[in-house]
């Protein structure tokens, strides 16, 4: 198996090399203010991209511009990395069904429609990477998938981050606690039961993991293949990140206990009452992917949701990203969430990072995306001005060196506004496959 994978990778590498020799001409973006995230913003910047990667960037005059390059004048504009949405329900996927409250075996990538118009909302909003998640109606809703919103994606394979859909880990594991997943059997009826079910399942996975270790490569001694257990072993090994829906302060503490007991990597999602336990979250060194909602309420766990969650977590030293939770928040308005973070006291630097690099870290993709640095994927957006002004538009969205959204093109403009039969509006994400909510 390992041998086969190596061959595939070698071949893959070869193809890339061939591609490289058939060099695309480089594209130069000139004159914009570039917010790199990883360093200080660069005024009058130059960014050179080639073969989907950032080749170099720096101040005008500092960087040599190739003579045959295509030059785009971006004077007066602001360029920042493509946005990373750590929690979304676009793509019309689903997740686990009502047969159980735990579905570590279920992959949302088996259900996503790459042609869904909901992806148009995301690119119109400047999102280039998205973690598409099953809902929160289960304790374990299924495996999430990390997608790149590439131009003309035809199949799910065209959107994946992972190279090998059959063997690689292509996303995280969605978990939830609190009220959304509560319900009649086979769902759990109380919070402590929920925690017990999860602990029992991970203990089972630990035993499965031990059998694999004990087999020491001997095929005959390996346990029978169990795709639920396999996914959970990936979690135990820290290779698959738990993306955990949780609202109330006590539910957050429950997740921290589980993390401590089983040692998995976890990102806390929504975290409505995170501001109440910011210190504890910081001490556990767990990042938070948070939601901004115009008003509190609508469900018991969100009654204490406030605009200042981001600011409070930042103050406590917690790594913070925002997410849309689309359809809860419209992907076109993703930047607005971080702007409200600033309104409530977040630093602009952290707020910008919370839309980009912080999210990339939470998906384990920070080596490839989230900041503008040479060698990273050429995923960026061109803004008409200050990112946190309501009057600023996402004018262009680029993914891996290709323009996927252009506001000046009427075919794209319509996705910016909506209107008659622009969006089908027939996919309204609900959590109805699971518990009571």
């Amino acid at each position, binding site marked *: 198996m390992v041998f086969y994978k190596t061959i595939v990778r070698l071949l893959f590498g070869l193809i890339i090399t061939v591609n490289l020799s058939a060099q695309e001409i480089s594209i130069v973006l000139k004159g914009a203010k570039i917010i790199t995230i990883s360093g200080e913003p660069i005024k009058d910047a130059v960014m050179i991209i080639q073969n989907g990667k950032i080749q170099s960037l720096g101040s005008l005059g500092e960087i040599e511009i190739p003579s045959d390059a295509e030059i785009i004048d971006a004077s007066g504009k602001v360029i920042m990395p493509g946005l990373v949405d750590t929690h979304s329900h676009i793509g019309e996927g689903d997740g686990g069904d009502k047969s159980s409250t735990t579905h570590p075996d279920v992959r949302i990538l088996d259900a996503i429609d790459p042609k869904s118009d909901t992806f148009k909302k995301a690119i119109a909003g400047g999102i280039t990477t998205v973690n598409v998640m099953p809902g929160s109606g289960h304790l374990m809703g299924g495996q999430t998938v990390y997608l790149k919103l590439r131009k003309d994606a035809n199949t799910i394979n065209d959107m994946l981050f992972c190279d090998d859909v059959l063997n690689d880990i292509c996303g995280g594991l969605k978990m939830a606690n609190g009220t959304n997943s509560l319900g009649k059997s086979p769902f759990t009826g109380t919070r402590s039961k929920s925690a017990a079910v999860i602990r029992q399942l991970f203990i089972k996975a630990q035993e499965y993991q031990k059998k694999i270790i004990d087999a020491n490569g001997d095929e005959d001694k390996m346990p029978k293949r169990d795709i639920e257990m396999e996914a959970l072993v990936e979690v135990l090994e820290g290779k698959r990140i738990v993306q955990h829906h949780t609202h109330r302060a006590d539910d957050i503490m429950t997740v921290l206990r589980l993390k401590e007991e089983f040692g998995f990597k976890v990102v806390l999602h929504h975290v409505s009452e995170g501001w109440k336990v910011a210190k504890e979250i910081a001490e556990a060194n767990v990042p938070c992917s948070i939601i901004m909602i*115009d*008003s509190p*309420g609508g469900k018991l766990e969100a009654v204490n949701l406030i605009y200042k969650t981001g600011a409070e977590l930042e103050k406590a030293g917690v790594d913070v990203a925002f997410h849309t939770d689309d*359809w809860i928040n419209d992907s076109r308005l993703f930047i607005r969430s971080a702007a409200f973070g600033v*309104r409530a006291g977040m630093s602009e630097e952290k707020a910008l990072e919370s839309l980009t690099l912080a999210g990339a870290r939470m998906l384990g993709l920070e080596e490839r995306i989230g900041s503008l640095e040479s060698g990273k994927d050429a995923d960026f957006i061109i803004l008409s001005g200050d990112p946190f002004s309501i009057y600023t538009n996402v004018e262009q969205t680029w993914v891996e060196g290709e323009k996927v959204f252009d506001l000046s093109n009427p075919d794209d403009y319509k996705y910016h506004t909506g209107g*008659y039969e*622009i969006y*089908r*509006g027939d996919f309204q994400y609900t959590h109805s496959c699971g518990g009571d909510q």
Partner: protein
Amino acid sequence: MKNRSPLRLPLRGREILFSLMILTVCFTLNVNLNAQLAVKGKTVYTMAGEPIQNGIILIKNNKIEQVGNENQITIPAGYKIIEGNIITPGLIDAHTVVGLSGIYNYNHDQEQLEKSDAIQPELRAIDAYNKADKLVDFLLSLGVTTIHTGHAPGALASGQTMIVKTYSESFTDYVIDSVSMVAFTLGNSVKSNYEKPGTRSKGVAMLRQEFFKAIEYGEKINKNKNDESPARDLKMETLLKVLDGELPALFSVNRAVDIMAALRLAEEFKFKLVLDGVAEAYLVINELRKINYPIILHPTMVRAYGDYKNASFETAANLYKEGFKFALQSGYESYVPKTRVVLFEAAMANAYGLPFENALASITIDAAEFLGISDRVGSLEPGKDADIVIFDNNPFEYTSHVCKVIVNGKVVKEECF
């Protein structure tokens, strides 16, 4: 105590304390009534004429006394001065369900829709409105001082709306208008709430039949005068008020087909129509132009699903370009968020092409005019209620704050939010 005359009023300690408390309350009320404030702002959007640079608003006895430039107005002695950057009138949400649809999503906190029957115009918002709901105070902290609230869209006739202030000190003082309009809905949302009607056209048929019954009911009353009047029927009485033009009919209609049905009903029954939602207004502009009914437009950021599926961020701007005046609303949200905020909806309309002052008008003076309360609120003019919002910056910018809210001349919010 021993020699107390039976004629003397027994003044024991507790009662003395009580009397003192009453006195204190009276004194406080008195102070409040006579509170004299001078609000100074770099830019004052009065919504009655051009904005005033370096403006001053004098407030006396809960009302606005004078508004003008600092060169025109001398602040009299004894006036407490409050300063700010951008000043607007208290904001008005032209249609919401806040106070009926409570912040908690369990049934006992949800009064916005009675599902026993699709036609119940006799239900009054005032009988369900919870002024203590946290969302009421939440809206106040974002400068929304007046709301037109009631039952949610989703029933053919859901009930009678009301207009209230979001700040109150008693259980009666918040009401501006206890019965404002009767709320109707056409479209898919009705189908999903009731077995009957099961279709759009059945819904219209049911309403028409009910209006004819009301006409008959009215005729009986007129014919028989006092002797043999029909038994009182609250439903019929309410519909009669609609037919008589005493109460406007607020029709929540979003698809073009539903807008047209509402126009037909208004033509047939000659009621005062107020159009609500109208997500597809841009498809029927010419029809809307024939009779200029008031429009309370859907929230700019309404989720584009169901009957709203063709909603556009630009509809407000397009209606403006076509010459229509409209108010904006926060609408109805059943889940997270539990309410929208008209300040943010107007901001987004502005960002998507509606000029700044028209966006502000849609949540102040234009809303007040459509709701028939412009004699009291909606602009900063002498004689009107002293409802004022102070912003630290452009009210529509994401990162600006509402720093003070004044209702009836009283500063009720002082923290920048």
